[in-house]
């Protein structure tokens, strides 16, 4: 068990899969010679050579289409789309091709593609480089979606994603790259298994990535007052481990979901709806979603922080819930 950064964990996962399987290749803008804009792929060109680790032109549609074509003909490619916002320029490939190809052909192909995308706000990159865009892809059966929040999950989910025979989008939160955590090399993480990050009796809080971190901060603070949060990180949104959340709500009778992004059409609303449908009777108070303001991401540091759900906001949300439930 070593302590590594989220970034290095991702790097190690890529290296491990490139090592394990000759069919794994890695392409993307500046992933090879430069080792990636966020240095996640540093050193991989040297280790695995220019055939398997390739820089591409600025052509996201071609990048995603190419890994798709490569996957259905036998490779197991990984592509970096860099900032997740750029999924916009290759959205057709991600939404209309990757998840539908197998289905439309009656199962003639499998599509073992992994896309890595750099997600999220809090770092002052402005409205076109700060989105958490996993929600763009929720209604697209055929895709799987991972949102790791720790080095171990980043490592374990990325390895699982690469080995998966389906297209997987793995979102890396840019604010977490330098966060350190324990890593047990070789330890993969299955998709569809939530992590109960902190056990508690009073309120179930579900959050991912940066919001998970803030939920844990809120949990620490509330613990001082004797309010015990159960913090759950779903880790993958598709498949989603609803059962773990239901089990928790059964115990706590209270649900708070914290999401980075505007609330409409997100996994947070979807989870709240699912729990309302399936665990209505268990709830002592209306479930709650805390999310960003309904605006694009503002640039100025003060505005961006006000826009994002803070640990304070989570504390406040829990207090409101407790009042109603009491």
């Amino acid at each position, binding site marked *: 068990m070593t302590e590594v950064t989220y970034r290095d964990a991702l790097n190690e996962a890529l290296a491990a899969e490139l090592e394990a399987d000759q069919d794994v290749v890695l392409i993307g803008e500046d992933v090879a010679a430069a080792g990636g804009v966020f240095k996640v792929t540093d050193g991989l060109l040297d280790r695995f050579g220019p055939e*398997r680790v390739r820089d591409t032109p600025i052509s996201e*549609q*071609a*990048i995603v289409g*190419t890994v798709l074509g490569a996957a259905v003909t036998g490779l197991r490619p990984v592509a970096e789309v860099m900032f997740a916002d750029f999924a916009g320029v290759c959205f057709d490939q991600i939404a209309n091709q990757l998840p539908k190809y197998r289905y439309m052909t009656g199962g003639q192909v499998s599509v073992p593609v992994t896309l890595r995308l750099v997600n999220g706000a809090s770092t002052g990159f402005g409205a076109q480089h700060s989105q958490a865009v996993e929600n763009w892809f929720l209604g697209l*059966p055929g895709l799987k979606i991972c949102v790791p929040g720790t080095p171990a999950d980043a490592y374990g989910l990325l390895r699982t994603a690469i080995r998966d025979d389906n297209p997987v989008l793995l979102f890396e939160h840019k604010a977490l790259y330098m966060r350190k955590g324990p890593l047990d090399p070789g330890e993969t993480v299955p998709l569809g298994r939530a992590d109960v990050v902190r056990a508690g009796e009073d309120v179930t809080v579900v959050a991912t990535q940066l919001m998970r971190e803030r939920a844990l901060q809120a949990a620490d603070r509330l613990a001082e007052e004797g309010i015990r949060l159960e913090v759950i990180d779903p880790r993958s949104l598709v498949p989603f481990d609803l059962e773990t959340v239901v089990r928790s709500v059964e115990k706590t009778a209270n649900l708070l979901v914290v999401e980075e992004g505007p609330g409409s059409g997100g996994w947070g609303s979807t989870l709240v709806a699912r729990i309302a449908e399936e665990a209505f009777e268990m709830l002592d108070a209306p479930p709650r979603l805390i999310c960003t303001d309904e605006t694009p991401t503002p640039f100025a540091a003060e505005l961006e922080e006000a826009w994002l759900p803070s640990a304070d906001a989570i504390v406040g949300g829990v207090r409101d819930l407790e009042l109603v439930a009491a």
Partner: protein
Amino acid sequence: MTTKAASESTEPTLGTDEQRALFARMVEIRSFEEAVQRMFAKGLVRGTTHLCQGQEAVAVGACAALREGDTMTCTYRGHGAVLAMGAPLDRAFGEILGRAGGLCNGKGGSMHLTDVSVGALGSFAIVGAHLPISVGAAFTAQQRGSGAVSVTFFGDGSTNIGTFHEAMNLAAVWRLPVIFLCENNLYGEYSPLATTTPVADLTIRASSYDMAASRVDGNDVIAVWEAVAAAAARARKGEGPTFIEALTYRFVGHSRSDPASYRPDGELDQWKKRDPIALFAERLIESGVADADEVAALRAGAEQSVAEAEERALSWPPPDLQSRLEDVYA
């Protein structure tokens, strides 16, 4: 016209049997498309279909230049190309009819005929989306040193969409074994090329990628075969991609609902005089590959295969309702 000489090959030729087989395949496709047209007219199928009568020489000539292990991607107007790769007629009908025995078990439909077992990797309904997919197939080939090539069919109108540009550029910069086969049938949907495209000779566009290019008579199956064979030979040698513009014409409307009233008077008739099947029949006879009776027999045989396949497909049941829940994930 071309930016780089794409040919200069050793000029291989097609034998007698091969030429006859090409002819039969062209007739099969024509006959298949006419049958599909009737099915839609009779209301046996919902939705839409995009037929390729008049363009058979492109699909058949190009696919004949491929070998096992090569792959092909095409558009919604892809029945001809998929059949040219060797997909079974009955299962192709079955797919268009949405039957259980269809190539895709009825989940794809007319716009998505696919038979991976013969290298027909897929038919795609988003203009341009499949070009990078062929680039990816070629990437696999390069990576593995398999010598395989991937050919991708698309129309003149598709050369204006972003993926065309990105796919051409990436294939060129990585020198991938892709053949970009543009079927210039003068229209994108109802729009004449000149209204959407400031150049009339599309091979010019290959120069943006320093890519080999050539322009061929798309109604001459042998010319298409030669151009693709030359491109494939170059690609297999690691010399990179080629862009081929095949000049052709569709004898029917863009899709089911299109009466094609935007065509100037007489244009269709002119092109019908250059019907690729009639042209090839003449050539077979002139060159002594087959006499008139043999040509007629090939034609009749092909038509009969189609009729029988149609009948078989029509006898198949619709897919099991539960099957709609399968094939989402591997």
